[in-house]
């Protein structure tokens, strides 16, 4: 697999949506490829910055207007020719998928800022476990890396 495909996995990984095998494969590649490692670090920094944004609520009027427009858009329209409906279906599917993905990204990044903390706390649990394990290593390298940071 090439770097481009791994790069597409960055955001899924940050969102925790990769399978264990995929995440492991991505980690192995990122560790071995300096270019991807830089890109991954940049993606992570961006992701963390997004999560650090304050939680803002849209003005009530804007919410009402948007809801009214959605309701208006969803009212039944005169039926188009059957071939138009067939052509429209895949386009709507793609649009819905993109909207859903975007909603997920925004929802997890901005609407739930406590997930930022849970990411940090996961790291702390991981660090504690690494500290426990490294004491039982037959070589000093794991302990040295834990002290100095795995990637500095």
């Amino acid at each position, binding site marked *: 697999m090439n770097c481009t495909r791994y790069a597409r996995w960055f955001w899924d990984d940050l969102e925790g949506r990769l399978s264990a095998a995929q995440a*492991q494969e991505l980690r192995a590649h990122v560790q071995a490829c300096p270019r991807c*490692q830089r890109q991954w670090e940049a993606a992570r920094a961006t992701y963390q910055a997004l999560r650090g944004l304050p939680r803002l609520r849209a003005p009530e009027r804007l919410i009402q207007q948007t809801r009214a427009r959605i309701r208006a858009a969803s009212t039944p329209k005169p039926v188009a020719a059957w071939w138009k409906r067939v052509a429209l279906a895949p386009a709507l599917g793609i649009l819905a998928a993109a909207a859903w993905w975007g909603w997920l990204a925004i929802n997890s990044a901005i609407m739930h800022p406590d997930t930022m903390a849970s990411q940090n706390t996961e790291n*702390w649990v991981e660090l504690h*476990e690494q*500290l426990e394990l490294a004491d039982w290593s037959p*070589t000093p*390298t794991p302990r040295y*890396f834990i002290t100095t940071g795995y*990637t500095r």
Partner: protein
Amino acid sequence: MRFLLLCGVLLWASGGAQERPIHWLQRALQAEGSLTVAGVRVTELQVGRSVRRMEERFWRQGAQAERIEILAPPERRGEVLLLRDGKWLAFQPRTKEAFELPEKLPQGTMLLRKAIEWVQAGALQAELLPDTTVLGRDCAVVRLSRARPPRGRPELSPKPPHFPAHMTLWIDKETGVILRYESSVHPNAPVLRMEITRLELNPRLAPDLFTLPSGVTVRPLSGEYKSVEEAQRAVPFSIRVPRYLPAGATLERVLVRRRLTDNAPMVILHYRTPNARFSVFQTHQLGDGEFEPPGRHTRRLSVRFWRDGDYRFGVVGNLPQAEIERIAHSLNRTNP
């Protein structure tokens, strides 16, 4: 006839003894302390989905000297760890600075000595698994686990040692070199694996392999400190120490971690009790960032994360949740 019988019994006994796991451990200890070997090895720390992979070249002259050159991760490639006069030094060949690593770094000899001691004391159970081949060499496979007390007689059990739940060693039958190693602190918990992927026996070693280049200044390694007082000089905020500690808890190490992606340094106080370990994490950051996830249990760890003013704290360990809460409570400034 009697003489022949006696010889037969002695031969049988010595052969049988050789197959006992503790003798393989002793053989490995002897090899660690006396053999000159070189090669490449890979160590992995697997915690959940995260795998930290470290690859290194090594040259070892018994227990006296060792040189390790990092190959992976790529960012750390070229860094050298050097054991000389009983101390580990870390340096980059391009720079004129070397860093002395803290004492009591883990090593094969220490690990094996402890294992042998506890197997002999009956606190660890050692078993031989079927032989396997690693690097094309026949290996005795020794699995160590904490001994269970006899049924209904817990008072007969020796004090449980502070030792991983499981440890498996693949020991080369010919030389005693540990070719593969795996340990897990608790069942179904993170795993540490080491495997030698290339091995040279009695290699020719360059005379300057275990010496520091001339003109290199040695300093203590920043990041790990012997005491909170020492670490305090390295961080811009006042390090808080828990006022409550469980019985028998001792401070094992003090770490200060700085990463480019973190806004502030993080201090880790790592404690050990006779039966457990726990870490106290703290950072200090001005402002009202969100940091109040509910305390939650992992499968085997109790955790508590909270904010107190500009401090963010975390306590993680295999203690009862009530103990974790007491430690956490004692870190808050407002509490007496």
